């Protein structure tokens, strides 16, 4: 039997529920300088001073003056120095908590600490909302439930002096197990309520404190060399799920934006006309990106990026915001899509929110088509006028005349004669010529820029495209993860008979093998972070409908590949689940009945007992039937006579084996119960 000091357990739990939100606030940067250190020192010091009751030697008035002074100072700081009100409030809560920890004496004051810790936890949501908050929240619920139960137990012992004895009260194993189990049930119920309770806020109250990720290379003017800066950045920017299976092609080029104008060092977008046409999801893009076959759905989730661009997978057929189940017509994640003259797609959703959206992707098709819109002449802009560049281009192109052949030859030429490297060469006056004639090595931007300019030199409309290439499968979360480090540049060239086609002239590079354990750990963390953001922080009505639809799919799946087909109920699962529930309920009822089987005589007494309980008179565990009935009779003069009669009959029959008419007993007990039920609740 585990025995523990109840007081000690309570102290440990109390400090745990205080330190959890304090740790969150510290992790979120909500504690400034000296306040952070002072708070932590004060909290730890209070542990020792409370043991020696030192805090009680300071009068309550002194504590009140201290707190009032701090409030005044905080108000002054907030308004005079433009300090954030929220931060000031958090500091004040910390001070109040520390003061209460020092000065706690009564149960009321200890309960105030519970309340203060909860307010601190709520305040922490304003400064931190990532996965760490979820973990700490779960721990807080467990510790808080357990702590409140222990608090109540202590109170009961204090209020019943005859139960209190000099040795410290002890917590037995069964009781501790029940308390821990109850805490777990409370946490599980809270989670269930969280997921089921209707989200009527439409996500408007989603935290606005997530800053969009800064993306190098995705602004409207990009200098050569930017991608190399993010090469090793493992931060995930995009997560992709394949509900209808992966595309047939293996190279994933996630297109963000393209450029037309190169000034010798930087790419810019110069086409101002006809910018940002509204893009409806039903408008197929196969006239821009030639493709064939049935498009497959890709469910995308983009992290907040510091740009309005929306990554798509080449060749995208169509695109739509939202999830397959619902697209919110209003709300922070509702928005419009636009496409410009560069075929870049932008959204109007705020940049500090993650965006779920869908794209349909088919297979690339380079066969000739009818009615291909001509490309803008801007994509023939050529800044390099050197003869050697022109000669080299001719050499690379060889005898090819068709755009596809030209592109293929240029690709082969660059891959064969130039080396990929992530070492950033110094950007000289003419980076492309340095790359071609001096260094003969570079990263993707050099290859893509050179290929674009060579294609233009050969008379083919071409543009450089910035985006991401590849990614990695996260087997923990079952999604494809694209990181900042996957940033890449490639080329799109125009074939008048086909449309825009893709060209990636950068030679493949060998990536170092990642440590398997660290890789798994990173994937697990990323999957957890996604789940946290998706299902907690940004859990809105659309996500809730998703959950309910998924549940419906389990119990009544729709035939796949047929969106219009009606759902067919999976009777096996439904009936099986119902059967399990019924059998469980029946078994429980039988067990209860067997456990508490009473004869009519005892049932009569139990009925009176329950009616008395409802009226406010509880029988103690060690209070015998005679004493209880007498006590009840003394509280209810109107039924004292029938109660005494019942007592005599009941006790005689129960313990004296007297031959008593059970009907008479039941009649008397019914009369008593009727009277007790007529009383107001807790009136005795």
């Amino acid at each position, binding site marked *: 039997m585990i*025995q523990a000091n109840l007081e000690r357990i309570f102290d440990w739990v109390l400090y745990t529920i205080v330190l959890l939100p304090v740790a969150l606030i510290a992790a979120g940067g909500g504690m400034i300088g000296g306040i952070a250190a002072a708070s932590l020192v004060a909290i730890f010091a209070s542990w020792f001073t409370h043991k020696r009751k030192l805090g009680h030697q300071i009068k309550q008035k002194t504590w009140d003056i201290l707190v009032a002074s701090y409030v005044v100072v905080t108000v002054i700081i907030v308004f005079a120095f433009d300090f954030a009100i929220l931060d000031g409030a958090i500091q004040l809560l910390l001070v109040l908590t520390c003061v209460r920890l020092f000065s706690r004496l009564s149960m009321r004051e200890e309960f105030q600490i519970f309340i203060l810790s909860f307010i601190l936890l709520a305040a922490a949501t304003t400064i931190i909302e990532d996965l760490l908050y979820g973990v700490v929240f779960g721990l807080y619920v467990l510790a808080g439930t357990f702590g409140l139960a222990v608090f109540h137990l202590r109170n009961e012992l204090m209020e019943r002096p*005859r*139960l209190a*004895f*000099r*040795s410290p009260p002890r917590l037995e194993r069964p009781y501790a197990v029940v308390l821990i189990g109850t805490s777990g049930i409370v946490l599980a119920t809270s989670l269930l309520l969280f997921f089921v309770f209707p989200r009527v806020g439409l996500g408007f109250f989603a935290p606005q404190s997530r800053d969009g990720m800064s993306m190098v290379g995705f602004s409207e003017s990009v200098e050569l060399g930017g991608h190399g800066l993010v090469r090793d950045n493992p931060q995930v920017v995009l997560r992709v799920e394949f509900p209808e299976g992966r595309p047939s092609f293996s190279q994933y080029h996630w297109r963000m934006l393209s450029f037309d104008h190169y000034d010798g060092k930087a790419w810019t977008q110069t086409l101002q006309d006809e910018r940002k046409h509204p893009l409806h999801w039903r408008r197929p893009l196969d006239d821009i990106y030639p493709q064939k076959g049935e498009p497959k759905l890709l469910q995308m989730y983009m992290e907040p990026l510091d740009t309005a661009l929306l990554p798509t997978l080449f060749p995208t057929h169509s695109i739509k915001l939202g999830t397959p189940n619902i697209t919110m017509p209003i709300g922070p994640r509702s928005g419009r899509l636009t496409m410009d003259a560069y075929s870049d797609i932008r959204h109007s959703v705020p940049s500090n929110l993650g965006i779920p959206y869908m794209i349909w992707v088919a297979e690339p098709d380079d066969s000739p088509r009818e009615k291909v819109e001509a490309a803008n002449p801007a994509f023939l802009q050529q800044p390099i006028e050197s003869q050697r560049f022109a000669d080299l281009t001719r050499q690379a192109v060889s005898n090819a005349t068709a755009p596809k052949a030209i592109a293929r030859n240029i690709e082969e030429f660059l891959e064969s004669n130039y080396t990929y490297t992530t070492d950033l060469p110094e950007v000289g006056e003419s980076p492309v010529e340095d790359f071609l004639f001096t260094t003969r090595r570079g990263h993707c931007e050099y290859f893509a820029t050179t290929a674009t300019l060579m294609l233009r030199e050969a008379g083919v409309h071409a543009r450089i495209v910035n985006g991401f290439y590849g990614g990695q499968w996260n087997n923990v979360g079952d999604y494809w993860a694209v990181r900042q480090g996957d940033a890449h540049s490639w080329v799109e060239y125009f074939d008048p008979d086909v449309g825009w086609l893709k060209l990636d002239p950068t030679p493949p590079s060998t990536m170092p093998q990642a440590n398997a354990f660290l890789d798994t750990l990173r994937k697990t963390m990323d999957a957890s972070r996604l789940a946290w953001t998706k299902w907690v922080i940004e859990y809105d009505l659309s996500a809730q409908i998703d959950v309910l639809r998924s549940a419906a799919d389990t119990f009544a799946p729709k035939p796949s590949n047929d969106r219009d087909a009606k759902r067919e109920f999976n009777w096996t699962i439904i009936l099986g689940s119902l059967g399990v529930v019924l059998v469980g309920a029946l078994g429980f009822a039988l067990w209860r009945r067997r456990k508490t089987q009473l004869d009519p005589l*005892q049932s009569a*007494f*139990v009925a009176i*007992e329950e009616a008395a309980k409802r009226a406010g008179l509880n*029988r*103690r*565990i*060690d*209070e*015998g*039937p*005679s*004493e*209880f009935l007498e006590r009840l009779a003394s509280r209810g003069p109107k039924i004292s006579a029938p109660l005494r009669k019942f007592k005599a009959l009941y*006790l*005689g029959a*129960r*313990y*004296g*084996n*007297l031959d008593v008419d059970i009907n008479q007993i039941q009649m008397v007990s019914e009369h008593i119960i009727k009277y007790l039920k007529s009383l107001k609740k807790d009136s005795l």
Partner: protein
Amino acid sequence: MNKPSSHARLQQVLAHVDTVFKGKPELVTLTLACLLSRGHVLLEDVPGVGKTTLALALAKTLGLDFRRVQFTSDLLPSDILGVSVFSQDKSEFSFRPGPIFSNLVLADEINRTTPRTQSALLEAMSERRVSVDNDTHALPDPFLVIATQNPLELYGTYPLPESQLDRFLMRLSVGTPSREVEIGLLTSRTSSAPVDTLKALLSPEEFRAFQDEVDSVQFNETVAQYVLDVVEATRRDPRVKIGVSTRGALALAHACRAWAFLDDRAFVVPDDARRLIVPCLAHRLSLNGVANAEKAHSESVMEDIASKVKIPT
């Protein structure tokens, strides 16, 4: 149901005792219940609260032969039990019974005498006979002992060992009377002891008959289960070194019968057991070192244990 006359007679006894021993009806009832169940009583309290008065009042009212023995440190066993004396006339030894040969013996301040003398009395209490010089002499029937002990004055005393306390069916505390009772005593007491005015309402034969009637009171198995639950709880409690023995459980059962009899019932109810747990069982607990060091009282420990045991309805 008991013969109406038995309950009524006993109520008369209680009322009669109450005329001289005022303000403690429950104590008198407990003591009478103990005597009816053929048990001996240990009254533990400070001097001057009426222990002797109670014993004497009961003895007189019940019509029992009464002897008072003042235990001192030089008291010998023979002073209690009796002694064989050589008769010159008859040239043989004859036994002169000691004060123990009475129906009701008041062993006053039993803790003042030596353990040897205590043992002689306690052995006689359990055996209900006396062996002197290889002769065994039966004690009268009924034979009951009311012993007294001052729990506070330990200097020069020999407190009864815990194992010997088991001989007493109940250990009771008298307590000081209420202020109203004391005022009544002060204003009404004359030079003659009021106990002298008491009449015998019963005879030893009648009292024996009542004792036999008590034996026939029904003790239900449900109540027996409850008694054993309490006893087992004492054996499991971490504060208790040695819990209540089977003898203690039997003693409680006997006392319950008497208590029910006094309440004019032919059967015991769980409430009877609950009421008598502390008087019958508390002095049978042997507390462990920690509890003793913290000066825990066995009554409070016993009450605490009993309060946690679920009572049947």
